């Protein structure tokens, strides 16, 4: 391709990692708010919150560091904080600044030892976590959405200049955030009491209480898998609308979207990397896994490697989505001169 591509891998990685980190923290905050009373039957919510909150800031910081290295001089980005204007990048960088701070504090509150002896201290930390959850949801969603608004702000890049792109990036951010939580959980969690394989599972419909302590691990997995499934479906709808309305219009956008439609330069990458690997295959596997629990209330069991591979596919798909959109937007421009 002879086109000059001004934004390449550092920016693509940044858009992906910032979305992933923000998505993980937002999911964690929602999960935390879902179990404010700390009841044992909602134990898996707390687990999810913990993984997401601790994990979230890491990709965020890695992504921002990549961006700063891409700019060359580390002192340069400070100019961003001398002004606020209506540029999506300006608003986004302020969002990012506050979100990095709050998400790091949020992560630290989850890493503190459980002050079982200090009732007051524990309560203070709980209140802090509650407040930060409420704060991190809008900030995290702001960071996730701004990565799409950033691209969509310019008529000179017709492929990006679509209101649904920001929505698509937000859904993808939440979805990849959950996938990152699943992977961390699979890699780090299974041990001690929860590690017991579920030998009491019977294939012929004997229902077991999902509140039994040994089932907690799988119930968390069920919660994550269903949420991810819903988000994948929403993402498919958003992509469908994105492509369909671009194709149905005339002019620049129709001309630009041809690059990811069959026959276009990036069609293979898009349809295999994003749609098949990132969305359709994980959706089928997850549907297959959650279906018995969803319909017949049969205890949910997913094999560790299956969970891992599905989450990995979602993560790869999320990256490929950013890659295809960022590159395809830059190799197309307005038609005519």
């Amino acid at each position, binding site marked *: 391709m002879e*086109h000059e591509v001004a934004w390449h891998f550092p920016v693509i990685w940044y858009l992906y990692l910032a979305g992933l980190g923000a998505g993980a923290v937002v999911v964690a905050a929602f999960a935390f708010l879902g179990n404010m009373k700390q009841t044992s039957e909602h134990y898996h919510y707390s687990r999810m919150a913990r993984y997401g909150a601790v994990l979230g800031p890491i990709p965020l910081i890695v992504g921002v560091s990549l961006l700063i290295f891409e700019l*060359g001089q580390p002192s340069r980005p400070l100019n961003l904080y001398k002004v606020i204007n209506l540029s999506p990048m300006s608003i986004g960088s302020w969002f990012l600044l506050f979100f990095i701070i709050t998400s790091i504090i949020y992560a630290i509150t989850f890493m503190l030892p459980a002050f079982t002896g200090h009732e007051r201290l524990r309560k203070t930390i709980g209140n802090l976590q509650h407040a930060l959850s409420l704060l991190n949801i809008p900030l995290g969603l702001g960071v996730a959405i701004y990565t799409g608004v950033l691209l969509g702000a310019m008529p000179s890049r017709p492929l990006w200049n679509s209101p649904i792109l920001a929505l698509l990036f937000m859904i993808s951010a939440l979805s990849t955030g959950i996938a990152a939580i699943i992977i961390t959980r699979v890699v780090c969690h299974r041990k001690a009491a929860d590690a017991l394989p579920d030998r009491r599972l019977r294939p012929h419909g004997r229902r077991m209480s999902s509140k039994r302590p040994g089932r907690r691990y799988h119930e968390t997995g069920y919660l994550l898998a269903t949420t991810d499934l819903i988000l994948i479906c929403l993402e498919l709808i958003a992509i469908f609308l994105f492509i369909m309305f671009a194709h149905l219009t005339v002019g620049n956008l129709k001309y630009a979207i041809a690059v990811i439609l069959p026959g276009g330069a990036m069609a293979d990458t898009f349809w295999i990397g994003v749609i098949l690997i990132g969305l359709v295959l994980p959706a089928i596997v997850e549907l297959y896994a959650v279906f018995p629990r969803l319909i017949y209330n049969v205890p949910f069991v997913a094999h560790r490697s299956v969970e891992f591979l599905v989450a990995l596919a979602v993560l790869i798909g999320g990256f490929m989505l950013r890659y295809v959109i960022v590159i395809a937007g830059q190799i197309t421009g307005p038609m005519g001169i």
Partner: protein
Amino acid sequence: MNLATLSVKFREGLERALRSRRANDQTEQETRPGRRNLIAGAAAGVATIIGTLATSLLKPASAKTENGRKIQYGMVIDIRRCIGCHACTVACKSEFNVALGVNRSWVEYVEKGTYPNVGRSFLPRLCNHCSEPSCVYVCPTNATYKREQDGIVVVDQGLCIGCKYCIQACPYDARFMDPHTGWIEKCDFCIHRVSKGLDPACVNTCVGGARIFGDLGDPESLVSRLIAQNRVTVLRGEMGTFPNVYYIAADHTDEVDGRRPEARNVRVLTHRREAQRR
């Protein structure tokens, strides 16, 4: 009362309010030290942020000369007089010592037709110094702005962070990153020459007199008269940028047109590192 005076009044009021707020802070500081002080400080900080935001949003429209019209430098490029010699490209390169592989101004060739019915047209390109510059709207640090005194779009390299957002936003591909400094560069209508009453280097050197420079706000200037008396076009007017570089008899054929079955054989030579128009 028009919007400009309104916004100036608003700004003055805001500044006055801020000043009194700061004075209040100081008196409070003397009387009540401690927590109250912190709150007042935070409030002043928030007020400053809101003030910055408000003033950046409500900029006075533009500076006007004493007879009430605005200076907007612009250019008319008469393609009928262009011989495609690239003298403007070379003059620009030497004027600014532009790095290899990038251009502030360049000349494209448009070739079309099937032998023996063929034609070649030239299209000199430069920054359009748009009235609605999309590069300015996306700049996160206000490093690129449209000068109020003459409408030239410039880059303040002290503020530029090199994020390339403006490169993405420009529909004319007039911006590039200087490979040596890492800052964004673009045509600035030779401010150093224009402010001394000279023509830009490309206009000065143009052998056929195809490039004509002047103040579009002055109805008596040569550019204004040429625009009034000729059929002029602009590039990519549908982008809504209201460019200030006008073309007489420009050929707007693009390679996209070559894909149509009835208009075969279109070739665009950009004479840049980017072999294709974006």
